[in-house]
């Protein structure tokens, strides 16, 4: 279940399209360490965008044995706007379904459940206003990570809440 905000994504994609032809794509290899005595593996992301413009950053890591669930969280440095995230096996163009993915301009929070051990790549797209800004975050894996998949009842609450937000935004705009 993908919960990406479609409207925001479209807006961000348009922004990306206007950002010029510069690309500073790169691949970062993310080492995950076992954490304490748990089944958790964790690794930090700290990736510097080398040039202004749209970018496609690839984060290569492993799917840990006996740690089938994965999360990818990232925060954008100054001037970076995220537009999307995908997961696939390394060097494979077929994307794997995400159980949840929330991409705002400044943050990413994605979850993929029930993965096997192997070599994977998270691919993050976005636009950098200037060179030198960083993407920071974490890749986390464990045997049982709760995905941000809302229950049906939660959906109703969320939709209600979104309606309220829309009303609030509308009211503010009217002000």
């Amino acid at each position, binding site marked *: 279940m993908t919960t990406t905000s479609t409207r925001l994504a479209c807006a961000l994609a348009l922004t990306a399209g206007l950002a010029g032809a510069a690309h500073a794509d790169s691949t970062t*290899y993310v080492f995950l360490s076992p954490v304490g*005595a748990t089944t958790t593996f964790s690794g930090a992301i700290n990736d510097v965008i080398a040039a202004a413009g749209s970018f496609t950053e690839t984060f290569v890591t492993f*799917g*840990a044995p*006996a740690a089938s669930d994965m999360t990818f969280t990232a925060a954008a440095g100054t001037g970076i706007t995220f537009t999307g995230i995908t997961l696939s096996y*390394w060097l494979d163009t077929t994307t794997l379904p995400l159980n949840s993915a929330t991409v705002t301009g400044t943050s990413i929070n994605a979850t993929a459940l029930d993965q*096997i051990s*192997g070599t994977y790549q998270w691919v993050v797209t976005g636009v950098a206003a200037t060179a030198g800004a960083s993407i920071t975050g974490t890749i986390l894996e464990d045997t049982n990570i709760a995905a941000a998949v809302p229950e049906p009842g939660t959906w109703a609450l969320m939709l209600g809440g979104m309606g309220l937000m829309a009303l609030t935004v509308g009211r503010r705009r009217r002000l």
Partner: protein
Amino acid sequence: MKFSMKSVALAASLALLAGSASAALAKRAAPQTLAVDNGLAASTDTVTIAVSLKVNNLDDLKAFVASTVDPASANYQKFLTPEQFAARYGQSSANVLAVKAYLEANGLTVTQVFSNNLVLMASGTNAQLSALFGTTQHSFTSASGGNFQRVLNQPAIPAYLQGVVAGIHGLSTEPRFRPHNRQIPAELAVVQSASKASLSSTTSRSTLAGAALPAATPVFTNPQSYGVKQVATRYNVDPLYAAGYNGTNTTLGIMTFAGYTASWATTYWSAVGVTRTGTVTVIKACPDGTTTCTIASTAAAGSGETALDVEQSGGLAPGANLLIYEAPNTDAGAIALYTKAITDNKADTLSISWGLTEVAYGPTDLAPYDPLFLQAAAQGVPVTAASADGGAYDAVGLGYPFPNYSPTLAVDFPASHPYVVGAGGTTLPLSLNLSAGTVTVPAERPWGWDYLQGYISSIQSAAYYYANYWPVGAGGGVSVQYDLPAYQQGLAGVRTSMPGQAMVCLQTTAANTSTGTQACTVGDVVMTPLPAGFAGRNVPDISMNADPETGYAVYSGSWSTGNGGTSFVAPQLNGIFAVLTQKTGHRLGWLHPLLYGAFKTYGYGSGSPFKAVTTGTNLFWPATNSYNPATGIGTIDANNLSSIFH
């Protein structure tokens, strides 16, 4: 005879599907162990190579092998002699002589021509080999300090030879085959036997791997110290003994890359109470054709492997004559070993407990083994191989430790060959009363030390567990070198290869000579992705107890306990097959159609030769109430198994 093949035609058509090396790995780099490249090897250094010749009508050979185990065929149980095999499937003597003459005309010395007319061994200097095959030979120093040579490019077959020669092999002299035995780490044994509350954080992996447990003469009825009599009882060989079958008038062969001391086995047999009547003979399979080549016989070289192979097989078949084929641990040595053991045709059943992850073989490395294993089958000789001890992750044990390297699912050769019986491993039910808690395995399961993960992590850390206790378990999975053979097609539980299987360095790693760890820099690619969804040969075929925690005593100059590994299962099956050969009254032949046919007939029901293993994993593949890549068909009941042979 109840297996399912109905006709020669069917058998032949099915056989054509089996045993062909897949092109799945073509153009993929095979991972190689770290070694310092010292540059061009001396041009005057002499290397012995193997020259494999093309099989005369491979498809017919496969069909013939299938027909020998088909009761509807006129060829049923009519196994070939090596001479008959050579005449039908080898090259003509004229062609063999022409190849020999050509090699000699180019300065090489042909040291052996095997009588199967499919393999020649030849020696030459690097200058001669380079001139003839266009190769570049470099000298290397291994992480452990040993020197060897490795060829940097594929040898080109001279145009004159291309109609007859299949391949040039053995230019690399690296000792890369590994014995598949394990031992309980000494630190864990201490925790089990004393009051030590925590494992040493400074204990190195080499210490873990090489630890010898202190033991006087073991109590063979205890787990970790089991002897062959306990094996016979557990797998129901005893009724066969009671009926007078113990391997008498049969010969079993052990193939190995390390020498040993003969008195070790006799000490073992005496201690466990086995009275052997069969003979024991050591045969050197020297690539240079002599009987004087050096076979390493130190513990580090694997003498313990040879000892346990002989002790287990000879102990389970006390009436069988034993042939111990020894060869140097090199690529040429391996081809000489298999070729001699098979072409001698003295052994009724063969086993090997050494191997190498199949993904470490280059695209042409495996080609010479197809006709050899087919030859064994055509002569009626089952060949059994240990499926290795790295669980589902056979390549990780090659020196690419997780998590510095991404983990990769892989299986081991020769167990992955469709004409070799892959011998897998289980853990027997156990309860370990450790100083910081109890570890329990309630039912027989695939051997995999994931059941120790919670305990090790709780008293040390998860990182320590992964660094020192992972991956340890029974080898098994899906081959990406060999297509799914006919006997596994349509079988519930057979799997295809998993996606995402590649190996990349994720943390810069220093070489560690004591652990064999390969050095790398972040981003180094060891293996590009292996084929996903590949319908490959599933390994293993059958399993027996292999976990050191429920394992065995070995005598190799002194007693040690807590030994295990699929290394035990291969010679145990070899011994059992020798007993079955005596009862059957003739060689057993190509076993796979018989085993899988019997499984389709009996399942796990009454009288079945097989017992299901239904819980646990080999660190990835789950055991199920069907065929599975963790334990294969399951464990065996030898007495029931004897009923499928006629």
